């Protein structure tokens, strides 16, 4: 149907093509939108309308040439819980893509994934590998079963290291423990990090010593996704995570609220 006003900032409502359980409390949701899929680079996100509940930011964890978009979602509250109830054929809305995405112009990447942060990074890794670039991936989670996209990463041509807090797989401990113990050859030109903010902060501090450029994908409360409501702005720069980010170079955010506090839905500061 002719639609004279297909607008980037208006949700397109689509049926779910499928839902896949990836790990406890984590599912992937598939929809088809050719225009958005072709426009999305790794690290960019969509605003996902969970109809009747809320609209929330969600990284794209993969795209298909046929226009398939994959979103990988951890159940943490209202909207994500409702989403986890949905099945193939149920409707959701998407608008985007938004944000800057990762700069993958380097050649040798160190990729550090924590929990659901693996979503955008596995997409980035896929792209890198397609382009014949080298990647060392650190996959961290609490327990073995929460190592997101493990089997997919194992199939890719990358060096994969894993850590679990309970030691059920790989190094016992955190991502930083892997880095300290396992990575001897620091011959990377770029490091991409996404995961819980404390983990990102610790990783960035450690990697910085090695003199590698670091990109981090931040998570802040978002309302508009298009840079106008001010909800996601960082102190003291005023950079907006939705429009100037979500990916920042470590230098941009080193001396900022990063690792320290963020803001809730009211704009009040809450500790990280």
């Amino acid at each position, binding site marked *: 149907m002719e639609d*004279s*006003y297909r*607008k*980037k*900032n*208006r*949700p397109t*409502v*689509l049926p779910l093509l499928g839902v896949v359980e990836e790990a406890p409390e984590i599912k992937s949701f598939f929809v088809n939108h050719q225009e958005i899929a072709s426009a999305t680079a790794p690290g960019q996100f969509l*605003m996902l*309308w969970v*109809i*009747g*509940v*809320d*609209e*929330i930011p969600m990284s794209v964890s993969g795209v298909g040439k046929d226009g398939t978009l994959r979103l990988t979602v951890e159940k943490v509250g209202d909207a994500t819980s409702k989403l986890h109830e949905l099945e193939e054929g149920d*409707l959701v*809305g998407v608008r985007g893509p938004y944000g800057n995405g990762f700069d993958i112009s380097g050649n040798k990447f160190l990729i550090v994934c924590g929990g659901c942060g693996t979503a955008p990074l596995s997409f980035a890794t896929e792209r890198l590998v397609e382009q014949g670039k080298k990647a060392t991936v650190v996959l961290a989670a609490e327990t073995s079963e929460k190592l997101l996209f493990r089997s997919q990463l194992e199939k890719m041509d990358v060096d994969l290291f894993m850590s679990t807090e309970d030691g059920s797989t790989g190094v016992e401990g955190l991502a930083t423990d892997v880095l300290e113990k396992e990575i001897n050859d620091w011959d990377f030109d770029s490091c991409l990090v996404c995961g819980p903010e404390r983990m990102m902060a610790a990783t960035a501090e450690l990697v910085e010593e090695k003199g590698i450029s670091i990109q981090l994908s931040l998570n802040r409360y978002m*309302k*508009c*996704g*298009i*840079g*106008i*409501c*001010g*909800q996601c*702005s*960082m*102190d*003291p*720069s*005023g*950079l*907006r995570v939705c*429009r100037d980010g979500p990916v920042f170079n470590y230098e941009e955010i080193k001396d900022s609220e990063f690792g320290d506090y963020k*803001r*809730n*839905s*009211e*704009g*009040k*500061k809450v500790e990280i």
Partner: protein
Amino acid sequence: MQKENLHVHLGDLHLRNPTLLAAGIMGLTGASLKRVWDSGAGGVITKSVSKEAREGYSGPRVVETPCGLINSMGLPNPGIESMLEEIKIAKDSGGLVIGSIFGNEVKEFAELAGKIDKVGADAIELNLSCPHAENLSTIGQNPKLTKKVIEACKDSEIPIWVKLPGNTHIPNLIEVAKSAEKAGADAIVLTNTLPAMSIDVTSERPILGNITGGLSGPAIKPIGLRLVYEVYEKVDIPIIGAGGVESGKDMIEYILAGASAVEIGTGIMKRDLDVFKKVCEEASTFLDERKVKDLVGSAHKN
């Protein structure tokens, strides 16, 4: 960078240029206000702040429409005490900062105005056009209540601006504007967003979390212009235009209609923070030697 011909005055308040960051846009934190000031705005207005913190509505909170944007943010804000801290940060950076406030009762407005005044802001904008203040949801359509609210705030040392709704019921709007002037308002701001909605035909649902919201952007510029034009003929205090300003030409249209300055909000969606500098440069180039302030209301002469 701040061209001479762009300087304007709103009463005693001098602006380096006539572009103001509109209330509710980016103005949640001091850092964000500072950034907009640094990017070239003539002044920055905070998100409308209430006594207590508010979460606002659930999403979707914005939806784009033909040449416009509807939002139903629901006036989220951290409450006056936190906002005062943010205003200090913005003021410390040298910016011209206006505090936008709304209350549930007349005396709440007074209390908030007093606090904004004390923290060192340059002006106070009374948001009398928010559909969200439970008890006073239509203040801006009620001349008496408008007068009461303004009078309650007049103890402040700094100017009081009054932001009115885009009321198409023009006799009512004029009555309110005159009443605001009589009560001692220092400027009138027109217009806030216009009540609107959008429906998704696939899910058969209103898109916004709050069902209806406010329409802004170029779509409403012709409506905002006309409101400024009509009110300019009836009041003598300065008018600040708002609604769809994206280019130097848009701003000059408002100036010619009778505005002494303009607020810019949705324009950031299209031109990002450069919008302030670009609007100024475009206007300045177009005006050549002429001064913005000499053009205020000129369309009434022709």
